[in-house]
């Protein structure tokens, strides 16, 4: 073990400071959400009153966000996995161009994408006021994450040899795709799925313009609560959001670590 000089302790201190910067407000807001009066401090007592009020007032936003993110997952799986396969197999210039294009909704600010959707489809009354309008935005924004995650795995495994092997044994394309390719891309599909659900759950930039009073998602409700309600209710609502999103974030970190560890075990 190397001797740990002053530099080590300085860097450790700096790292701890950055950690505190990121984590302290999270902890504070969680506490504020269950404190009777945040201004008066924890001495004022703990309560679930604020969480109950959030549940009463904003339950629908939670349901909608869950439904939206799951619908978004279904769409990105159906569109993204075959697209990733094509991009992995066709290593031509047009495939690179398509890949570049597909990533654009991540580069272009959500505000611009949302405005574009509104000017193009805003007059289609039934579509504009339904939750499908938000779903379209979310699918555009999350599709690149699914494609990239699956593509990364497909590029890492020897897709061609696998497929040729299966084909030489007489497997049809459908069999090869569902029984050989998809199982081999499990880790990428899992990582992409977790990312899609998490991002859809938290998407705000686009959703704020796409939503209507009847189609409010969780982050839209949060913005509402921050703007108009007392700090404790905003905090309680944030707490609810954390409770929903933290398991997903933990799963993402786990999924990112798992394949590496598995590979290390095999080696």
């Amino acid at each position, binding site marked *: 073990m190397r001797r740990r000089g002053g530099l080590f302790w300085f*860097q450790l201190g*700096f*790292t*701890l400071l*950055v*950690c505190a910067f*990121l984590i*302290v*407000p*999270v902890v*504070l*807001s969680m506490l*504020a959400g269950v404190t009777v009066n*945040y201004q008066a401090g924890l001495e004022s007592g703990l309560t679930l009153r604020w969480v109950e009020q959030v549940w009463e007032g904003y339950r629908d936003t939670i349901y909608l966000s869950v439904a939206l993110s799951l619908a978004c997952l279904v769409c990105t799986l*159906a569109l*993204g996995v*075959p*697209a990733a396969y*094509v*991009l992995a*197999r066709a290593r031509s210039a047009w495939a690179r161009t*398509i890949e570049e294009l*597909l990533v*654009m*909704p991540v*580069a*272009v*600010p*959500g*505000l*611009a*994408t949302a*405005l*574009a*959707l509104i*000017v*193009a489809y805003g007059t289609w009354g039934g579509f504009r006021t339904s939750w499908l309008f938000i779903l*379209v935005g979310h*699918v*555009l924004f999350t599709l690149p994450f699914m*494609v990239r995650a699956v593509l990364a795995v497909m590029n890492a495994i020897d897709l061609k040899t696998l497929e040729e092997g299966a084909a030489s044994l007489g497997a049809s*394309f459908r069999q090869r795709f569902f029984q050989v390719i998809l199982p081999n891309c499990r880790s990428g599909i899992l990582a992409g799925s977790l*990312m899609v659900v*998490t991002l859809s759950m*938290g998407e*705000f*930039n686009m959703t*704020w313009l796409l939503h209507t009073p009847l189609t409010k998602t969780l*982050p839209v409700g*949060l*913005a509402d609560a*921050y703007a108009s309600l007392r*700090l404790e209710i*905003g905090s309680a609502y*944030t707490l609810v959001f954390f409770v929903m*999103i933290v398991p*997903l*974030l933990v799963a*993402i*970190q786990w999924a990112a670590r798992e394949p590496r560890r598995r590979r290390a075990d095999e080696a």
Partner: protein
Amino acid sequence: MGHPRLFFLILPAGIVFTAFFLLPLAQLFVIGAGGKDGLAAYAAIVVDRNYRASLVATVLLSAGVTIVTLVISGIVGVFLTRNRFRLRPALTAMLTFPLAFPGVVIGFMVIMLAGRQGIVGDFTQWFTGERLVFAYSMAGLFMGYVYFSIPRTILTVMAAAEKLDPRIEEAARALGASPLRVVADVIVPGLKPAFLAAGAICFATAMGAFGTAFTLATRINVLPMVIYTEFTDQANIAMAAALSFILGAVTWLVLALARTAAGSSVAAAG
């Protein structure tokens, strides 16, 4: 391999993408030129004094955020890849934890830190008797953008730092280079592709971010807020369309340029 099959497999994604992204963006461009000023609306972002001011403010803010984030993530990322100690996994998890927080929540985190009831205010009141409150201004926005840029940048830096060969550093040290020289001549050049890629994402995200500014104050004069105000309060859809088209083009261009630069230097290094 049958090309027709590949074509049909990517067709659904292509149709959705064209119908809901490419065509609407094209329409956005047309509408941007369809206002009372015509195509000149696109020049307004540099000609009109207010728009230019918010463009300059947004670019300066994003550039500042990018630099500060890269410095912080560079120090922390290299430290965490180079040292193995018991706290390390926990620290890494904490630093990447806010990765997917939406902008509105980040805004609220800034309020918890530097808002009217924030902890910074508590501390300063305790020390100096005055409450320091800066959440609802450009400084608060800066803090928020650094907050959400750190997790993604650290991940990129750590991935790149893993691949750096520690022997080069040891060689430099053995040849008598000071720690500062090692950082400047070995580590920073080695991480340059990662810095470029992460920096570009940082910059582009800060340019287009909306949620944080929205939570903190609608008066902060950054481009996304201006676009939003034009669209809702002024109902000036043509101007909002022109501004957001330009904003989209700028952020996309920055990312594309950085990818090319990072890509080529990665290839050159390999």
